């Protein structure tokens, strides 16, 4: 057996346990003490993140966070990464990532209703990157589509740092009733433990230790860790689980993910302050001759651990029989405060759950990275494209900005009949709550070009951007979940990035008074051969509530002769912008997201939307004002003329006015007669605002400074560039 514990950790184990662990126990401890299961490097930092709010019912620490929508409705929400498996087997890696997150939602007794995916790859010019890109998307599509859950939104970035380590983050939301919530807990000694679903095999053994390493030659031998997804089985597991839960005989439920049975048994018994005893001879297995420690740590897919009241056992088993799903009655809840594993009536492991769940944190060193020193603080655009119209066309063609139609057209985004806003129609997906005049809005975001130059403000900005994206659809933001993706935390420079990122994220959440209800940390996203770590990336998944379906607002311009208004001030912040990357390379001061500015703009936009004054709305992010307006024109088919002199600003440089990625900005359109009302709402909220132009049906977007036209782009040509940006790389 391969042990990944350091000798220091092994000594700690012996001290905590007061004896030598046996081989089975060692296997269980080894897996639970991995970075992936224990969060030993990250947990001290993660404590800084605010997690409480008036709508939070369940926060971090359980399978998924749960928030209250009122009227007894709740939403379970979670985001997770599946980076390492996707980097070596993109199709199955992405598919099983979806499988895992669906189970996290399901086991709270909420029906999974939507998936979102946040993806990062190397540049599409390279064959290997195209292979990863196409197969990850196919994996997500096949799995989500087959089990009947729509994939409704996401985001994607392309950058060489993600070449060997692509990032595949998936978010899922589910809807349920407050009184029916079930948690991953064992509380009552005597309750029966039933393992449901796929049989246990050797696949995925040491999946978590695999994720706690960088990908290098070692990955070759680690390769049996790869899992194969089975979406049709997942659909049956979903239905059987929800039916079993409806009997109210299920007292606790947890999905088996990283750490397998060991993780489920220890976390569930620890949370309820009880013990658990299982007999491993009872587990239904796929391969004979599996060693006991292998059974305890296998991460075979599609498995759930049920805690069932004894009087309801028969009724529950009948349901499982009806759905023809395999299960085994493996043991019971005890009052021993120990996780006990038996084989042939002999005890082969007996551990207090705390030794598995409360792994001592590691204080990692941190040091400001050297790479940051090479970027001058004063950043000048060396190459300025003379022709601004051409620059806009070229930005629209950048895969990070271009239309994501190639991706979302492979996804079923409407199955389940809840989808109100489909991909591409607005900044966030909107799904209705069936039978109510309510909807939820969701979006994932992170700008890793900003976070690379400034992890603090970059991640403050990621929070702000994801929330702006749900606000523009008419939603009140209620919570976020986060998914951290970093290199090797043992490298002080990487750990510095992580620390600063968490600080920036917490700063913005505290300022906006939004709680984080769950998250995931993925370290070791690093190529050892070239020592390239991924750009620091905490993907933020934001969740909002729309309390009247009439408020839902999309991004396309609706009519000619309407007003174009910008809310929020434009600063001299072109560093790390897409414009700078395209024409100058990376460097400079990135947009500093400040919570007071964000709050002012968000409140102004949300009030205006709810009063019905806004006909189209879009957040201003990658590519700045020019690209935001271009997308509104491409989507709605109407043109516009805009005078950039009128923008609330700190600089007069046309490049900065058009392409700066300052936060806290929205572009909205409205009927002329409503302009005064919007201006007043903005003033009342202390938000900078200006009427900057008008829509028309001339088929072009024209930018001017006073009377002088500085760019004039045809919608037709912009649409072509935007649609081809990704498509041109696919055969």
């Amino acid at each position: 057996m391969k042990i990944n514990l350091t000798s220091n950790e092994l000594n700690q184990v012996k001290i905590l346990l007061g004896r030598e662990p046996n081989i089975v126990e060692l296997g269980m401890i080894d897996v639970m003490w991995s970075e992936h299961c224990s969060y030993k490097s990250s947990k001290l930092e993660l404590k800084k993140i605010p997690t409480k709010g008036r709508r939070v019912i369940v926060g971090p620490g359980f399978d998924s966070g749960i928030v209250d929508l009122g009227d007894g409705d709740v939403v379970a929400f979670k985001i997770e990464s599946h980076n390492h498996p996707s980097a070596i087997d993109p199709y199955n890696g992405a598919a099983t990532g979806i499988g895992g997150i669906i189970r996290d939602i399901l086991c709270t007794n909420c029906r999974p209703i939507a998936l979102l995916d946040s993806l990062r790859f190397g540049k599409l010019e390279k064959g290997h990157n195209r292979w990863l890109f196409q197969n990850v998307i196919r994996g997500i599509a096949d799995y989500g589509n087959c089990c009947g859950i729509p994939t409704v939104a996401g985001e994607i970035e392309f950058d060489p740092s993600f070449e060997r380590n692509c990032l595949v983050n998936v978010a899922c939301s589910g809807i349920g009733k407050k009184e029916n919530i079930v948690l991953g807990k064992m509380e009552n000694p005597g309750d029966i433990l039933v393992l449901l679903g796929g049989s246990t095999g050797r696949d995925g053994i040491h999946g978590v230790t695999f994720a706690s390493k960088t990908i290098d030659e070692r990955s070759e031998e680690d390769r049996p860790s790869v899992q194969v997804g089975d979406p049709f089985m997942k659909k049956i597991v979903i239905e059987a689980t929800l039916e079993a839960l409806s009997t109210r005989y299920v007292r606790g439920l947890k999905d088996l993910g990283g750490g397998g049975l060991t993780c489920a048994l220890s976390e569930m018994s620890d949370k309820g302050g009880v013990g658990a005893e299982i007999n491993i001879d009872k587990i239904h297995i796929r391969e004979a001759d599996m060693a006991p420690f292998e059974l305890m740590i296998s991460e075979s897919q599609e498995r759930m651990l049920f805690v069932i009241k004894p009087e309801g056992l028969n009724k529950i088993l009948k349901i499982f029989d009806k759905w023809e799903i395999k299960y085994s009655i493996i043991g019971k809840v005890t009052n021993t405060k120990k996780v006990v594993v038996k084989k042939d009536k002999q005890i082969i492991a007996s551990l207090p759950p705390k030794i598995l769940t409360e792994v001592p944190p590691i204080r990692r060193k941190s040091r400001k990275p050297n790479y940051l020193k090479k970027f001058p603080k004063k950043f000048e655009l060396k190459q300025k494209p003379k022709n601004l119209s051409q620059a806009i066309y070229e930005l629209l063609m950048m895969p990070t900005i271009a239309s994501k139609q190639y991706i979302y057209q492979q996804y079923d985004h409407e199955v389940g009949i809840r989808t109100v806003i489909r991909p591409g129609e607005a900044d966030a997906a909107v799904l209705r709550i069936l039978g109510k005049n309510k909807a939820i809005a969701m979006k994932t975001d992170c700008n890793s070009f900003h976070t690379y130059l400034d992890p603090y403000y970059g991640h403050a900005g990621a929070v702000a951007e994801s929330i702006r994206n749900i606000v523009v659809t008419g939603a009140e933001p209620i919570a976020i979940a986060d998914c951290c993706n970093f290199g090797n935390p043992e490298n002080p420079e990487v750990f510095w990035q992580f620390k600063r990122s968490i600080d920036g994220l917490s700063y913005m959440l505290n300022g906006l008074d939004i709680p984080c209800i769950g998250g995931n940390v993925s370290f070791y996203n690093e190529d050892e051969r070239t020592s390239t770590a991924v750009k620091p990336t905490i993907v933020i998944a934001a969740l909002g509530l729309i309390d009247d379906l009439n408020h839902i607002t999309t991004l396309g311009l609706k009519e000619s002769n309407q007003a174009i208004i910008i809310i929020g001030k434009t600063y001299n912040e072109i560093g790390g912008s897409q414009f700078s990357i395209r024409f100058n390379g990376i460097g400079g001061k990135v947009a500093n997201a400040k919570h007071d500015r964000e709050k002012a703009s968000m409140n102004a936009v949300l009030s205006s939307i709810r009063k019905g004054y806004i006909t189209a709305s879009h957040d201003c992010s990658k590519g700045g004002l020019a690209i935001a307006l271009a997308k509104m024109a491409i989507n709605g088919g109407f043109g516009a003329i805009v005078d950039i002199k009128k923008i609330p600003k700190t600089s007069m440089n046309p490049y900065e006015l058009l392409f700066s990625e300052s936060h806290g900005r929205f572009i909205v359109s409205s009927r002329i007669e409503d302009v005064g009302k919007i201006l007043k709402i903005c003033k009342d909220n202390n938000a900078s605002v200006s009427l900057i132009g008008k829509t028309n049906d001339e088929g072009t977007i024209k930018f001017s400074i006073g009377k002088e036209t500085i760019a004039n782009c045809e919608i037709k040509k912009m649409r072509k560039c935007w649609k081809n940006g990704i498509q041109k790389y696919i055969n």
Partner: protein
Amino acid sequence: MPNYLVEVIIENKKLAKDPEGETIYRELINKSGYDEILSVRSGKYLRLNVNAQSKNDAEKIVYKMCNDLRIYNPVVHSCKIVAKGNIE
């Protein structure tokens, strides 16, 4: 140069799951009383007509092609390549 028939059989590795094979076995074979059949493994089959000096060369060409073009993913799949006799 002679032509060879080359067969390529791609399966999930032995340790990996095979949901398709499992479903065929569980839902069809098992439920229809074919008790003699004990398991099923699904896969992909390619039949290629290859111009090469020898059987061995034909296999080598196909092996290189399968790897270069990612006809299979060595991480998950096993790939068996067999050249049959000259087909002229």
